[in-house]
């Protein structure tokens, strides 16, 4: 049986049927017939320039040569891929290309990684070409710290140009001149290192000849010499799949993996070039024990015995609730699960939390109240279906570069983009409407948008009626935020606010993306509720291209939350209060589950409750630099009876510990990470950990034995099996399934395909709930002593407190030192020049760094990052907490600038 959309044809005399619209190339591939290609980029429409895929096509009596990559199949075609005429045409193309291509990358020399030479070999063109070289040699462009550009190898296939422009949306590479004078250039002909290149390396991934290649020896090595292990990027929450190339037990390079469901082969600079920390000489290789004023190396036995004894003693003296466990958004799901199990079932306390407290706690609390489930609703893939996009408090192109790719594709398609952000970030420059608000006024603006949508009748009555509750109360509050009022709070034009509201409400589906600019405020919880209100009001939930989507900071924030590394919920967000739930956990764990909710990380490390916690087991978190108000954090950490830090490096925090345990990195263990799309993906062991370092899950197991309640697992897969038994949203997830697919939770049973889009028919809590939310100013506002608003964040090339990224040469070269962004007007007024040292002072302390004069930062606002321990931004930040989510207000505090000499 066939329908009209199926085409039948023969390829090399083999009959086949393929869907209409299939190219000859793909049809041949489905028969495992490999037609040569050079310019083809599978994810983009064909621009068939290389002409090497020519095949012979006979149809209705006529015979033609056609490029297989660009020719759609039609009924009755007879295709001969190796017809003499086609092979001759191809050979001629190769001969022409070889004329100008250096022979030093002939297969023997280059392990066949040069696609041109691989094809030359296939077409028996070993001795090169009848044609002599005609181009003058190009000097090698070595100006970029990570990428070498050797145009002598270039065959002008334009894959790099398309990867840079059409896939990554950077448009740095282009072709200058025409004909045989064509040449690949960066910007208007600048050396690559001086161009606007953002070092994502997409061009390197696509270049077939090594004309653009990562620096270092990797390109020259034989294909067979590398083992490629498919795993997940250890940096942000996008969850990009990548291949670690391993040789002699070392990761030598990172390769694109085009099957990656979240990223389809694309990576950012961190993912592609940020791997050297794995083999850093700074890695911890032995447990360390504090003795006198310094550390000494110790055996695992000794160190773990000491930790177990210390914890037991604290429990005996002060009770189990005097112990805290900090799990980690950098650890796997399995490890987070074990860490909370250690706290609850072994130590007997709910004092377990992790760094989501510092980034997305309000996402959890607010989305749970609004919908009944604390996660983003949609996927990167379905974002392409959006007709409008609202991005709030997210510098996506730097913080989540791969999530920004579908956004930029939307913009290229003409879909309106609304950006709410104080700074004129890259997305703001692409936006239809940019609301450059005063920091900390997001909530007022979102209420103002709700006001416009209500007033102008742009809301979705059916959706509100059928699927929501609490509309009246929300409406009541929104009434108090007419555009003029909201706009004056935010310092923007009310007309722009109206436009933003209309665009968001009238183009459907419309999607919301947000991140720490929304959450890291004392009003973080309320602001996420305000976003949920907008989505509910416009019915933008439960369908592709819509939804409300937090972008998670760390690779496994979502997973660490899912696994119950939270003081007030059991794994899978199951209630601590529900006796049935507790009973289920108790029956599997064989231990009672404590009832009383525990303390949040910010409470554990805050001054207010100092003394409540006597012992802290801190895994994979540089708390000293990451928590607000470093002076306070340091005082609390120093006052502990026992501080155990488990990490890859002797971080600033680890230096304060009594015992330091060396952990394995992501490249050295198996497990799963859950990305910001709720996508559970396998990470795989590629190399051995250094020295005696062990995976976190193994350390936790070893510790639990010493604490008298052994947890025993042979492999993380066994831990996942236990998770699947206890956590309904992970019920259908298992390692054998994850071998071939990724699964987005909820995935309740083994036959369930996962859930790319949440809430198609109902919300977990029944109806979606509106919340009336009132704007309150930030905890600390500028005054005459501290006239600036200081806001903090990350940059493209560095990550968090820099423990990994600063130990990756590549990234370090791209952003080596701290800086303070100041608007040109303010810089002028204060007499601060570009590059001049400047002190930033707040009520809590001061740091010194170089000035970066940046017009995108609004007047009255200064920006810095928290990557650099020599200028730790969190010495400055305000520890005031959101009352519900307990997240500190990293995004706003009052500061003063003092230019220094030199």
């Amino acid at each position: 049986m066939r329908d009209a959309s199926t085409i039948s044809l023969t390829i090399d005399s083999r009959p086949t049927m393929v869907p209409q619209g299939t190219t000859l190339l793909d049809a041949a591939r489905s028969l495992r017939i490999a037609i040569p290609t050079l310019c083809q980029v599978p994810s983009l429409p064909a621009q068939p320039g290389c002409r090497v895929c020519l095949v012979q096509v006979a149809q209705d009596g006529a015979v033609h040569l056609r490029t297989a990559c660009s020719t759609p199949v039609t009924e009755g075609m007879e295709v001969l891929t190796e017809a003499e005429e086609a092979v001759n045409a191809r050979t001629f193309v190769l001969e022409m290309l070889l004329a100008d291509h250096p022979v030093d990358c002939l297969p023997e020399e280059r392990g066949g990684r040069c696609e041109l030479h691989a094809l030359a070999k296939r077409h028996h063109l070993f001795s090169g070409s009848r044609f002599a070289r005609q181009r003058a040699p190009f000097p090698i462009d070595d100006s970029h710290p990570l990428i070498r550009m050797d145009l002598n190898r270039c065959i002008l296939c334009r894959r790099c140009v398309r990867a840079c422009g059409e896939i990554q949306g950077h448009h740095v590479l282009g072709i200058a001149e025409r004909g045989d004078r064509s040449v690949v250039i960066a910007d208007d002909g600048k050396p690559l290192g001086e161009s606007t290149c953002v070092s994502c390396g997409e061009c390197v991934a696509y270049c077939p000849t090594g004309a653009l290649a990562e620096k270092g020896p990797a390109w020259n090595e034989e294909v067979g010499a590398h083992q490629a292990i498919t795993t997940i990027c250890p940096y942000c929450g996008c969850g990009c799949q990548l291949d670690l190339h391993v040789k002699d037990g070392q990761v030598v390079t990172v390769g694109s993996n085009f099957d990656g469901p979240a990223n389809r082969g694309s990576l950012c600079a961190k993912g592609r070039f940020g791997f050297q920390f794995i083999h850093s000489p700074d890695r911890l290789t032995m447990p360390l024990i504090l003795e006198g004023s310094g550390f000494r190396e110790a055996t695992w036995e000794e160190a773990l015995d000491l930790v177990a004894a210390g914890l037991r003693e604290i429990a005996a003296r002060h009770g189990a609730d005097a112990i805290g466990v900090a799990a980690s958004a950098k650890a796997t799901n399995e490890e987070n699960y074990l860490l909370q199990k250690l706290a609850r079932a072994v130590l007997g306390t709910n004092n377990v939390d992790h760094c989501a407290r510092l980034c997305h706690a309000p996402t959890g609390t607010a989305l749970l109240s609004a919908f009944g489930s604390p996660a983003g609703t949609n996927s990167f893939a379905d974002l392409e279906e959006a007709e409008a996009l609202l991005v709030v408090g997210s510098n996506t192109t730097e913080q989540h570069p791969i999530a920004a790719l579908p956004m930029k594709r939307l913009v290229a398609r003409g879909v309106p983009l609304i950006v709410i952000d104080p700074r004129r970030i890259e997305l703001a420059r692409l936006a239809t409407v940019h609301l450059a608000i005063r920091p900390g006024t997001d909530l007022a603006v979102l209420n103002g948008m709700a006001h416009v949508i209500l007033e102008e009748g742009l809301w979705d009555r059916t959706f509100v009626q059928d699927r929501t509750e609490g509309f009246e109360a929300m409406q009541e509050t929104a009434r108090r935020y007419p555009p003029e009022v909201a706009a004056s709070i935010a310092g923007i034009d009310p007309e722009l606010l109206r436009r933003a509201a209309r665009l968001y409400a009238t183009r459907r589906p419309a999607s919301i993306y947000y991140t720490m600019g929304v959450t890291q405020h004392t009003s973080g919880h309320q602001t996420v509720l305000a976003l949920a209100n907008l989505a509910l009001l416009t019915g933008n939930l439960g369908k592709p291209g819509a939804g409300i989507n937090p972008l998670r900071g760390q690779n496994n924030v979502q997973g660490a939350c899912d696994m119950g590394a939270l003081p007030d919920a059991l794994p899978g967000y199951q209630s601590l209060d529900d006796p049935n739930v507790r009973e289920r956990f108790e029956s599997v764990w064989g231990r009672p589950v404590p009832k009383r909710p525990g303390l949040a990380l910010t409470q554990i490390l805050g001054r207010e409750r100092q003394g409540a916690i006597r012992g802290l087991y801190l895994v994979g978190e540089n708390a000293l630099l990451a928590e607000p108000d470093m002076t306070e954090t340091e005082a609390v950490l120093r006052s502990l009876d026992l501080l155990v830090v488990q990490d890859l490096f002797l971080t600033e925090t680890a230096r304060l510990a009594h015992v330091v345990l060396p952990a394995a990195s992501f490249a050295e263990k198996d497990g799963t990470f859950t990305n910001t799309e709720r996508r559970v993906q396998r990470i795989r062991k590629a190399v051995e950990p250094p020295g005696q370092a062990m995976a976190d899950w193994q350390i936790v197991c070893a510790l639990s034995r010493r604490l008298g309640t052994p947890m025993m697992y042979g492999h993380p897969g066994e831990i996942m099996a236990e998770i699947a038994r206890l956590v309904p949203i992970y019920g259908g997830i298992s390692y054998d399934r994850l071998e071939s697919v990724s699964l987005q939770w909820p995935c309740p049973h083994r036959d369930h395909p996962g859930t790319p889009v949440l809430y198609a028919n109902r919300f977990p809590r029944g109806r979606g709930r509106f919340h009336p939310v009132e704007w309150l100013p930030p905890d600390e506002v500028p005054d005459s002593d501290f006239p600036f608003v200081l806001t903090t964040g990350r940059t493209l090339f560095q990550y968090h407190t820099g423990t990994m990224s600063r130990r990756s040469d590549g990234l370090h070269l791209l952003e080596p030192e701290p800086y303070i962004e100041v608007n040109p007007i303010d810089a002028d007024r204060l007499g601060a020049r570009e590059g001049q040292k400047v002190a930033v002072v707040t009520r809590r302390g001061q740091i010194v760094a170089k000035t970066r004069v940046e017009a995108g930062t609004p007047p009255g606002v200064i920006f810095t990052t928290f990557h650099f321990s020599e200028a730790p931004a969190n010495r400055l930040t305000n520890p005031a907490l959101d009352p519900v989510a307990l997240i500190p207000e990293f995004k706003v505090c009052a500061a003063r600038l003092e230019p220094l000499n030199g």
Partner: protein
Amino acid sequence: MSEKVLTKRFEISGYRGTIEEYLATGGYQAIPRALKEYSPESLIDLVRRSGLRGRGGAGFPTGVKWGFVPKDPTLTKYLVCNADESEPGTFKDRDLITRDPHQLLEGIILASYAIGCRTAYIYLRGEFVAGAVIMEQAIQDAAAHGFLGNNILGSGFNLKVHLHRGAGAYICGEETALLESLEGKRGLPRLKPPFPASAGLYRLPTVVNNVETLCNLPHIVLRGAEWFSSIGSPKSTGNRIFSVSGHVRRPGNYELPMDVPMRELIFQHAGGMRGDRRLKAVIPGGSSVPVLTEQHLDTRMDFESLAKAGSMAGSGGVMVMDDSTCMVRAGEIVARFYHHESCGQCTQCREGTAWLHKTLRRIEAGRGRKVDMDLLMDICDNMKGKTICPLSDAAAMPIESYLKYFGDEFEQHIVERACPFGSGGGS
């Protein structure tokens, strides 16, 4: 003597092509006529029946092309007048633009009406500086007289015309490269299909027509399809303007019926060979087409007859060479042009044009090798029918024909290690 149509006004003494002069000589009468008597559909049918074929090079039937444009009234459609005239040996559009710009505008208005276009573009060759000034003025004047703008002559039909100047690339005369360029991108030919009629400018339905093609329209509307198709041969109807250049006594543009015999064109209208030298070669349709020789002089200049003789009518540029011409040198010059103009997308064309040029230069300079003739043939063979656009073919076909008719001359260069004509190359 046949009647001139397109260039009739050129003969009025002092005629400068102003709107007043154009109106005074019967201009802009086709517009009210068409708006009143023809629906867009019936206008397309009129043009189809006239047999008018494109004068830009490919000779595609104009009415048929228009018929491919979707009728969906909600779709924006564009008309683009191809005024990029860059084919070596062709200079007819330049005259039509500078000497009678309103005739072209009237054609543009008629074509726009027929296909439902509200915004039309003229893509003018960048070097035509004078033409740009004249055309801008003409557009303003036509608008002032109500032939452009909203509600033209009270009919409810609206049209805006924009002039866009190219930046000096031959490839931007190829219609899809032209559209890319008009969109502000690099002028790289697009993959076809889709053809512009379904996905052209900004991926919307677009008709691209040559200047001369459009100039015929007012006359067809006023005098009818039967009149037009009675001129020329059954499949090549109407007059065309032949741009005659080279070793003739009176080079210039000659408007004649499509099927005028080559001998009549060269020896009667263009005044015959300069210095009564012997005719050696004729390129009958612009530099892109195969060369013909004395033996073809009785061939008629219509599409079919020239095709039968092994060449093409192309853009109507007729280049005549006498027996003092070195055909290797002629080939070298043609090859140099295409080498310079290839856009560089397709390997065969990018590299092949360079190698043709280089090899011909070598032969002309007396450094050719025996194998070079085979090499040339092989390059040409591999450049034909294998690329995105026909520029590659256009570069290969002439060289192939030079080798075919003048192979001895090539051999002589190689054997004697010098150019027997003493020109010695140098390009």
